[in-house]
């Protein structure tokens, strides 16, 4: 009976199935849509708004890639994934690109056969505690109850940190950020740990954000970045350089507002190369000349995306910190477009 169901399903699927092939770029073009894996909802990074449109920091990367490849920043199918499903979804070809605040680690890059194509957010794991608890350092947390999201690297970092400092704790694993917040506010855990950006985002939604502080320790490196399947290097190049274009655009002062003017009047050869008025960078990665221009116009350059979704003006209120351009003391450093 198993078979008849599956054959039946295949008949239905066959009516809508697209062409199969190894080259992701061809698949995406044939489909006319980019399948992009995002979180099921994390304010600022990827969450549907009241109209059901996805917006956020990771979402912007998807839109930029769609704009570069398909010339339409809305030609994206956002596929919500959980911590559990994200890797299968990518490995099985359900999504072309995973932009889901995923930490770049050795084993994910090698053993799981993925390629991280860069870092769009340098994060680190922190702790949030109520001010009333009177704790000023994570090392004072001996014996504390800690809320931690399961299935993330934070869980492993937490275990390592407490082990390294030879102090004990009691983990309360939680499924979603919303539940972590509920547990933390009810006092079911003394401290909530996740990426510092996530903590800031969570604290912003509290009734009295001032009653809670982030501890100074950042206990891990969390380079978050988009990833693609290992093996299709052409596709990886496209996504990598789209991200680089967003970063470089900020460094070069290209914004979505002045891009037309810059294209027309620039004297900087690198800007000209990026905008496709000089050289043929686009052709080298299998796209047309204006790919990076479209990518930047989609949601703006890196700085604009940051400011719009998670920057200090937003409820999330994150400072640039490590995510400033290298010229401003940050880590963002796009290789030259040449």
């Amino acid at each position, binding site marked *: 009976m198993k078979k008849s169901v599956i054959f039946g399903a295949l008949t239905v699927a066959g009516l809508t199935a697209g062409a199969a092939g190894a080259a992701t770029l061809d698949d995406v073009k044939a489909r006319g849509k980019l399948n992009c894996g995002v979180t099921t909802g994390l304010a600022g990074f990827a969450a549907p708004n009241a109209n059901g449109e996805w917006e956020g920091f990771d979402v912007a990367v998807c839109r930029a890639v769609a704009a570069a490849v398909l010339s339409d920043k809305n030609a994206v199918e956002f596929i919500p994934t959980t911590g559990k499903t994200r890797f299968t979804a990518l490995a099985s070809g359900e999504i072309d690109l995973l932009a889901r605040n995923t930490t770049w680690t050795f084993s994910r890059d090698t053993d799981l056969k993925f390629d991280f194509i860069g870092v769009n957010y340098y994060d680190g794991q922190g702790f949030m505690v109520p001010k009333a608890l009177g704790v000023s350092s994570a090392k004072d947390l001996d*014996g504390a109850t800690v809320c931690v999201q399961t*299935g993330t690297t934070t869980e492993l970092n937490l275990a390592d940190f407490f082990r390294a400092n030879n102090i004990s704790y009691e983990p309360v694993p939680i499924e979603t950020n919303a539940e972590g917040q509920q547990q933390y506010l009810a006092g079911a855990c003394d401290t909530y740990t996740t990426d510092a950006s996530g903590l800031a985002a969570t604290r912003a939604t509290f009734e009295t954000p001032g009653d809670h502080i982030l501890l100074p320790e950042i206990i891990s490196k969390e380079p978050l970045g988009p990833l693609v399947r290992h093996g299709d290097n052409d596709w990886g190049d496209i996504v990598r350089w789209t991200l680089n274009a967003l970063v470089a655009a900020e460094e070069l002062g290209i914004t979505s507002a002045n891009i037309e003017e810059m294209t027309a009047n620039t004297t900087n050869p690198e800007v000209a190369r990026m905008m496709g008025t000089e050289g043929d960078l686009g052709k080298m990665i299998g796209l047309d000349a204006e790919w990076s221009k479209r990518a930047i116009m989609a949601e703006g350059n890196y700085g604009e995306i940051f400011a719009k979704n998670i920057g200090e003006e937003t409820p999330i209120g994150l400072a640039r910190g490590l995510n400033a351009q290298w010229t401003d003391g940050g880590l963002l450093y796009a290789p030259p477009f040449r």
Partner: protein
Amino acid sequence: MTTLTDPDKESFRLSMLLYDTRYRSITMQVIALGLLVAAFWFLGSNLAANLRAAGLNISYSFLGAPAGYDINQTLIPYTSRSSNLQAAWVGIINTLLVAFLACITATIFGVIAGVLRLSNNWLVRKLMAVYVEIFRNIPVLIWILIIYTIMTVSTPAPNAFRGETPTSTMFLDAFAFTNRGVYIPAPVWGPGSMVVVATFVLSIIGVFAYRRYATKLLFDTGRLLPTFWPSVAIFFLPSILVFFVMGSPIGLEYPALKGFNFQGGIQIGAPLIALWFALSIYTGAFIAENVRAGIQAVSRGQSEAAAALGLRPGRIMNLVVLPQALRVIIPPLISQYLNITKNSSLAILVGYADITATLGGITLNQTGRAIECVTLLMIFYLIISLTISFGMNIYNNSTKLKER
């Protein structure tokens, strides 16, 4: 279809495979087997091709690697350096623990509610009907979420026990109900405590022996011995006596607020309690219906006949109604136990570290070995279910009405 004379052996025609009942069954089975093999070949070759394309392989070596994460409630030794396999064992034991506890309490809830639904008290009857309908008609997943939220929001945090004028106090100075769990005193085994334990075990045996003797006496001589009070006395008195004779060797360690949490005593974590309670009260509603149906299935004539024989109401219940009702109640009861075990896989919603949360959750997420983890997970549940249904079959056979 069939004829009286045997068809000629020589004249085998191909159509006989379809029309001749002697061959048709073989044809059908060959077709079925062929389809099955084809389906498995189809799925298997797809799997192989897909894995090859993704550059992945099937390997169980991750089970030996350190798990790297901590678990809050473990009954066996476990640290973050233990292997993934050890984490899976922790999960298995936690699954069995919550399933076992929930089976007991669900039965208690169910029997009480089922009996009260047949009560002649209108208010109680209606109240129980509302309980049963509300819990049966709302998904268990929603109940688990609601009860977990109630647990965390409405019970006090350990903080509330702190300070000069705490907003919450410990019950009898021994029990603390917090939203991180319930803390109860733990026994401390001093020298000589083994004697007390041994006496206790012996007195349990004594109770059974006394009951057997009473039954035997009843059958042999017709004399009725009182059983309840003597049983209670045999159960408690010797142990208490020995306890004081030995100089109170078993002490209690009380939980006390130290640092961030209560220390000492036994902690029963909030996730365990929430899951335990949610499963019990949800399944209790189903068991209540089974109990009611079982009691109603015993025809009134049975109890009337027993009354006509001169049995007292308590004995009618024990000797006539219950044995017959249990035959109806127990098979669905066991499948409810099976359901509890399977529903305990929703532990992941409350952060309880059962097998689905460790092996099928965190280990799967951290290693990315989806196929391997889910396969092992299914094998585990399959073993549990088959064991329980095996037990049920034995029971069904033993209580089958002997038709002579």
